[in-house]
């Protein structure tokens, strides 16, 4: 990773990025041949592109993101799903794994149901197409959902998924972190409770030193298990 992503530094809107031979990526803008940061965030360099990864703000839907949504409305041939974005997404009957007759949408998915969906397209008007007809995507019938700021999703996942795999291991729960900041947790009640406590701990201490260790110690103490040995 070191050749792709080297130094990290905080940038503010309008800060010039002084680096030769880089192309403008996400979160930056180019003016008069110079590259500037467009939002508050961390500079990252990947494959010759310079990006600014946001440190705050709302979820900005991207094509290919797997997110957790809740159904807010339905019609004869589609459902409207809230995925925590500025606008609701549309789930068409063609994008579900069942054959749904016209007007029969309610017998498959109802208002209030939670879904694990993938964003298949975002157009320039920010209208979203989503699908549930793919491996791993489904209706979430059990478990519970907690919400965190979308900018903290990478922290819950950890470097190379270290934090999330640790959470799964110690709590014995199934956990899925949606890119939109919604986390689905399923397992025995005690495990769920512990997972939520750990997630809250990560959220509140996102800036604390040695967070991974602290969370690990907390989980060890609560469960009495130790996977390090």
């Amino acid at each position, binding site marked *: 990773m070191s050749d792709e992503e080297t130094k990290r530094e905080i940038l503010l809107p309008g800060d010039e990025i002084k680096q030769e031979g880089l192309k403008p990526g996400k979160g930056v803008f180019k003016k008069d041949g110079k590259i500037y940061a467009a939002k508050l965030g961390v500079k990252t360099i990947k494959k010759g592109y310079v990006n600014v990864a946001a440190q705050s703000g709302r979820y900005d839907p991207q094509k290919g993101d797997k997110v957790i949504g809740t159904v807010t409305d339905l019609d004869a041939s589609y459902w409207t799903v809230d995925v925590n974005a*500025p606008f609701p997404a549309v789930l068409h009957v063609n994008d579900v794994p069942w054959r749904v007759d016209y007007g029969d949408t309610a017998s498959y998915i109802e208002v209030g149901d939670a879904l694990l969906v993938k964003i298949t397209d975002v157009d*320039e008007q*920010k209208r979203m197409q989503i699908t549930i007809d793919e491996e791993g995507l489904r209706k979430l019938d059990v478990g519970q959902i907690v919400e965190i700021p979308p900018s903290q999703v990478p922290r819950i996942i950890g*470097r190379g998924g270290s934090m999330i795999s640790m959470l799964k291991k110690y709590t014995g729960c199934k956990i899925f972190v949606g890119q939109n900041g919604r986390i689905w947790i399923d397992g025995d009640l005690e495990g769920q409770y512990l997972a939520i406590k750990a997630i809250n701990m990560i959220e509140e201490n996102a800036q604390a030193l040695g967070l991974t260790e602290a969370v690990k110690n907390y989980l060890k103490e609560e469960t009495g298990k130790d996977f390090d040995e």
Partner: protein
Amino acid sequence: MGSNKDIELIKDGKRIDGRDFDELREIKIKAGVLKRADGSAYLEWGKNKVMAAVYGPREMHPRHAQETTKAVVRARYNMAAFSVPDRKRPGPDRRSIEISKLISEALEKVVFTEKYPRSVIDVFVEVLQASAGTRCCGLTAASVALADAGIPMSDLVASCASGKIEGQVVLDLGKNEDNYGQADLPIGYIPRSDELCLLQMDGNLSEDEYEEAMDMSIEACKEIYEIQKEALREKYSTELQAEKLNEEEM
């Protein structure tokens, strides 16, 4: 502007509150003070106390106000009932509607609105305590709150006023100077591109005085710009250091 000269505004080359002609009042900014908002800032500028909060981008209601190609920046400037010596009658009035409009338009100049079509970015500016120059305070705080909310923008906006008292051009009018002075010239300045996004004038200035006042204000805005950036860095750099350490561990 008050013609009523019953108060001495300049004494021994100093202003009534002891400042030099080109001296700002003390400014303090803190970013990210409200948990519920997407972004926020608290600003103290002399005796002014202003809170700004940003929500969005989110779905625009009413829908007829949506713009199909860009987001709308909708600012609301409001003075608390207790912000002035006599109780201010709550609710929008002629003055606060004007300032809301001007803050909206100034911020729209820097926000990349085309990235969020059909949506709205709500900016709330609450004046908790007023002591001259609240529109500049509001704009300065709002732009910090926008950056804190992670809204893509080309730069921060710094804002400051200058004016004329007893025939002398001075920077950043205080309460009495505003009431009994001869002119007031608030500006909003975009430092990176050296552009203005707000310019108003109350009272009269000659061409030379105007130039002098502008130069003073722009210099001051650059100073304010650094304070704004410092406030944002203060909030985020601590988070960043920690994050770096976490990664090394992993």
